[in-house]
């Protein structure tokens, strides 16, 4: 059983630490924390520090070094724009501009209602479809600003409907 803390923290896989028992397990531990909560909170850092004995400041240093770790939660729909070389030469900038314009968010930002987050990623391995974006797990390729706008609007509709259902249900 993984150790419990006092607050309503769901325990992530601290067992990783016990397996390896060596400093090398810090990154897997952080990855496990992020998998569980979607981001690394201050609480998670303090908790990991408590379990491992590594000072919080050092853990924070590791967290900020790696692009994978986030210190803020992400929106419901995470839009990743590929900024790999092939997508760049095929117009990734126009794609990002369109998203900025349509959803009013920039890279590493989340829209006000927490509906959308925008991230930039390197090549996602389907350069033949460039320019490419990924929304949650769905890939959209061979985009033009006009095509993208349609896609984004359909997501906006979805968000609206979901919000509606939520209020209806009280």
């Amino acid at each position, binding site marked *: 059983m993984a150790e419990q803390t006092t607050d309503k923290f769901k325990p992530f896989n601290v067992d990783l630490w016990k397996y390896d028992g*060596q*400093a*090398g*397990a*810090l*990154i*897997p531990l*952080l*990855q496990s924390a992020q998998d569980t909560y979607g981001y690394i909170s201050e609480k998670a850092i303090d908790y990991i520090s408590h379990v491992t004995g590594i000072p919080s400041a050092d853990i924070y*240093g*590791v967290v900020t*070094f*790696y*692009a*994978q*770790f986030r210190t803020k939660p992400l929106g419901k729909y995470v839009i990743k724009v590929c*900024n*790999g*070389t*092939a997508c*760049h*030469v*095929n117009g990734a*900038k*126009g794609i990002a*501009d*369109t998203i900025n*314009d349509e959803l009013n968010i920039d890279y590493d930002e989340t829209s006000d209602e927490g509906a959308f987050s925008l991230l930039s*990623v*390197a*090549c*996602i*391995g*389907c*350069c*033949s*479809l*460039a320019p*490419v974006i990924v929304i949650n797990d769905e*890939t959209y*390729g061979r985009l*033009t*600003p*006009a095509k993208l*706008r349609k896609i984004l609007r359909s997501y906006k509709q979805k968000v609206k409907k979901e919000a509606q259902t939520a209020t209806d249900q009280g």
Partner: protein
Amino acid sequence: MKTVKIGLGTCGISAGGEKVYRAFQDELKDHPDAFVLKETGCIGMCYREVLVEVSNGNGTAHMYGEVTPERVGRIIDEDILGGATIDEWLVSGEDREVGFFDRQQRIVLRNCGIIDPGSIDEYIDMGGYRAARRALTQMKPEEVIDEVVTSGLRGRGGGGFPTGTKWKFTRQAPGDKKYIICNADEGDPGAFMDRSILEGDPSAVLEGMIIAGYAIGADEAYIYCRAEYPKAIARLRQAIAQARKNGFLGNRVFGTEFNFNIKIKEGAGAFVCGEETALIASIEGKRGMPRFRPPFPAQSGLWGKPTNINNVETYANVPWIILNGGEAYAKYGTEDSKGTKVFAMAGKVKRTGLVEVPMGVTINEIIFDVCGGIIDDKKFKAVQMGGPSGGCIPASMCDIQIDYQQINRTGAIMGSGGLVVMDETTCMVDVAKFFLTFTQAESCGKCTFCRIGTKRMLEILERITAGEGTMEDLDNLDELSEQIRAASLCGLGQTAPNPVLTTLKYFREEYETHIKEKKCPAHVCSTLLTYTINEKCTGCTVCKTACPTDAIFGEKKTVHMIDQNKCIKCGKCFTVCRFDAVVKD
């Protein structure tokens, strides 16, 4: 019985491969005995995804391209049940796609797009694990190393260091605890070779690592794989579990005295962690900062022990070399560069995807013979090789061979295999700026010149692309490049200027046009463009509302116009127009 095989490489999945797979699965319910359904990795022809291969069970097969779930019904009715191929959807067979496979030599990709990567049995059926068995049971470690030396194999991760020599150093390093590391961090932002190999034939990489472990005397190994590659990681885990079950990993491998275990470490998204000493720091749980070499990892690597680190593709070559002999491998290629190289073809080329060619073919042969030339037959301008550490080679020089020395002479590098093709619509100053933006953001910050110098260079490039550059800026770029190159600790900083230096060398007049005429000849740098509205305009007024300077005028439902004196070239009208009526020039 017929077999239906679906390409579920990254590109196949992105193009909707899983939906096609499910559509075939549904059909299987109605016709359970009509065919066997299988999946495979990247076939190489990513430009025709979703790819579906139908084998007739008598050794013949044909492949369909651009398959959608809607097309599945007809394939079932006419082909699987009816026995007639649907000619207009075919991509292979007869005279279609001439040249794509003929010029290739598949050693690393020998199983990619052929076997089901989730099945070790299919790997074994293709001759898998025979090389490891031979090495462990019939060869001395030194003999294994000699074979790799004879093959002339050089590291495929970018540096090109002779693999056999590296193994020898690690074997000879004193100490009884040694490690093997596979570098699967694939940092080049325009490349997907290693990913496709890991997803399409993970066992080949494991087998190469086992052979390396035996040769140098290591019993423990790590694969450092990008966390952004979840499918590759899943495939590796599966392949490791199956290998262990078969006695290819664990204690007493193949019944010998040799023990070997492989663990996976997920990288956390820092380009510099592809550099070997930074990678090792990252496995140890630290910030991934490079350190000064020597000592090289071969003497003091992971946890201070001798460590052999190679790239994914390097390891994937090894089983073939052991089975067929180093000399057979060395038959391919040039004096300096032996064997084959995998390239991820991207950009403005007709057939984008994964190709493996013998060293010694020319760049032109890859682009025109294998990949069918430039999209829309536009003018071929340059190729970018080596990603952020590499450079742009102009079209006029693309008759050089794929060979470490010849490519280095141009100022680019072989790199890990990203090959991005550029045409007349690509701006070379913008490309340089793109790579510098990348390296500047990824510098770990340890060396002042890498951290600050790349920032200064980027600022200059931003000025030039905004039409505010001066001719002195070009000299400053040269000077900064020299300083960064000389004063940086690791390859990231040392090679960061390459994209700028090569474009300055071969496309200087394009820089000058940006500076002197304030024009971007390729129409890419947005502030240097002129925006106009053409007759496709429906008068929807969307651009008029979006324009921050009220530069757009025109009545509702009539063609709009732009007042060039007011326009600040923000490009907003271009992105908001739903009718492609705004054009930039």
